[in-house]
């Protein structure tokens, strides 16, 4: 693809260089600092002249390392466990949101039925609900109402199988956090996917239906493959929120289901601001989204524009 590029004057390139520096600079700074000892960060006489160390990463990952780092007396930061929790929660909720959201979006676009407008209006309305608003009710419900009696049939079985005490509640489980993330992301995913499904030519579906395919077959065999770019965009956005969210996770998780953002905020504890370790954990949390951005920036941008340009 040969394309002639306009010649730009040097000032223009200088502006671009500055912009790139501004947007990437802080991330780079964090990256560099995560390889410094605290003393180096605090004294910081030299920006780049220092002896890189992986000590901060060792501290962060001490619970999954196969050896015991020498500089640690005990492993207080259980980053590995939190990372796994984050992965489980983000991946499962992304999958569920996509499947469920996709089906709903399809129904909203393709079928004319009673209450369609109400449904799509509600979808749009709940999109604006901030997580902070959900904090109080979700905290109350997940801890007190959405519970199985420990003496009941299922609750008893769960207690026998997994141990633990008290009634079996959604709070403190992966499922509890996943449920709220799926619910929170659904409106957005439905909204984005609608704009992709609209573009699928109806004739294709009708052809499939003539060949004897049922509605579900049409959906999975014809529609889904055609909206792959939309799915990718929706997946990345859902993952981003589920991976990065702090507030609700901190209200719902217990010591075994902590996610990485919680761990980072906790680690900013006031007695000991260990910049190096904090930067290292921050970097580890940022890596998956950075990788996605680098690999799929086109899909992200499509998703963003689809979401906004089509109201």
């Amino acid at each position, binding site marked *: 693809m040969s394309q002639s590029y306009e010649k730009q004057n040097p000032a223009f390139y200088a502006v671009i260089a500055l912009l790139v520096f501004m947007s990437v600079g802080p991330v780079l700074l964090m990256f560099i600092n995560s390889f410094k000892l605290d003393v180096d960060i605090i004294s910081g006489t030299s920006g780049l002249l220092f002896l890189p160390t992986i000590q901060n990463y060792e501290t962060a990952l001490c619970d999954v390392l196969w050896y015991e780092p020498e500089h640690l007396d005990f492993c207080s930061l259980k980053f590995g466990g939190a990372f796994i929790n984050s992965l489980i929660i983000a991946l499962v909720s992304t999958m569920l949101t996509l499947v469920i959201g996709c089906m709903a979006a399809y129904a909203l676009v393709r079928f004319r039925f009673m209450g369609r407008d109400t449904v799509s209006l509600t979808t749009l309305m709940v999109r604006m609900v901030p997580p902070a608003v959900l904090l109080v009710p979700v905290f109350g419900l997940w801890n007190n109402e959405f519970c199985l009696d420990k003496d009941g049939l299922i609750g008893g079985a769960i207690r026998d199988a997994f141990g633990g005490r008290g009634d079996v509640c959604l709070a403190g489980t992966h499922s509890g956090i996943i449920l709220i993330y799926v619910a929170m992301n659904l409106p957005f995913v439905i909204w984005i996917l609608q704009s992709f499904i609209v573009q699928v030519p109806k004739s294709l579906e009708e052809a499939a239906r003539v060949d004897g395919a049922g509605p579900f077959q049409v959906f999975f065999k014809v529609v889904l493959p055609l909206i792959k770019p939309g799915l990718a965009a929706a997946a990345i956005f859902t993952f981003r929120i589920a991976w990065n969210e702090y507030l609700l996770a901190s209200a719902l998780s217990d010591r075994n289901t902590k996610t990485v953002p919680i761990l980072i905020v906790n680690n900013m504890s006031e*007695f000991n601001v260990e910049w190096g370790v904090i930067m290292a954990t921050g970097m580890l949390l940022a890596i998956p989204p950075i990788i996605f951005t680098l690999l799929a920036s086109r899909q992200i941008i499509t998703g963003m524009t689809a979401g906004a340009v089509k109201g």
Partner: protein
Amino acid sequence: MLKTIKASVVATLMAGTAFANPYADYEGTTLIVNFPAHPHYDAVMKILPEFTKETGIEVEVDQLPYLKMRERQTLELGQEEGEYDLIAYVVFSKADYVYADQLENLAKYVMNPKLSDPNYDADDLIDGYVYNIGFAGGNKGYLEGKTGSLFGIPYGSETSVLGYRKDIFDKHGLDVPQTYDEMLDIACKIPELEPGMGGLSSRAASGHHASHAFLLHLAPLGGRVFDDSWNPIVNNAAGVKAAEALKTIVDCGPEGATNFGFGEALGAFLNGDTAMFLDTTVVAGQIDNPDKSKVVGKVGWALHPEGVRRGSQTGGFGIGIPANAENKEAAFLLMQWLTSKKGDKLVALAGGNPSRFSTHADADVNAKFPHMATFGEALKHADPDWRPIIPVWGKINADLGTTLSKVLTEDLDIQDALDGVAERTKAVMEEAGYYTWQ
């Protein structure tokens, strides 16, 4: 004759320990405990393996920052059956937990001969802290008194001391301040003598930090938050003076001091940005740690300066057994072991804050940490009533801290600001029923 009796007693005792290990019944139990992310409890983490080795009881620790810890505990203790077997709690949580019937009264464990160690020597625990942290139901509900009883044991006793840079003080021929006037004077002289250096680093960030810093000055300057019949008097002359002291300290402090939490305040001192530090004793370990500190060996310690009286803070943590715990007896054994003479000394040597007189006087501990003698002296002046420990304190504390932060950053008039606090506090107290009997 006497000798033989003694010998036989010793023999039986030894045989007793050999055959009836008090821990035997609980071997293999796993205790889940909730500790704060805090230097003292970091030291505890180092000595816990010793406990497991000795008793066969496993301990799983959930370490959280202390404000988070309280949120977590509120949730766990409120449930019918909780996860934690032993919790460390901040002093001011005592009122809430005891009031809501969420902590075990320790009497039944101390009375149980199978659990209670006869050599525990409870008299050796520092009185002020036992009453401040562990005791509830006495005078005013939170002080020592005939109607009270024990719900927890102090573990990680902190008080306030003044840390100062010996090198800076020597260089300019300054005397270590004994009184508040001297301290404030020096605090504002330092920036002139040493350009770029702040006088005293104090916490001042909005909320808990500002409130804490203010209360730190309030007690020695003769003030109190409430009078004897729960009327807020935080806005009297002493209160204003304390707020002025805080403002002076922050104004003459290091850059950005208005937004300092504890970590930043300490960080500034560790980095050599300030000449003095007035806060809890818990920092000593970090100041001597070359990985974190640029002032190793340059810091001297003195008592919290005197205003109209000596009155350093009583703070720190206590450990208690939640009423909804699963393994209460084993938890008591852990609690007893940690606070015993042996445990207290171990934790002191690992860098913690001991809670016993004997540990502060211990030769080994003093050899390792020469400042321990000063700290022991400071503990004697600790004021158990420097901060009220009542269930509604959290709300008042937040208001006080926010208002003071405004005084520091927005130049609110001090008297007006404190009058406002007093008025709102009065309303809170009224609603909570403190004036029912008036």
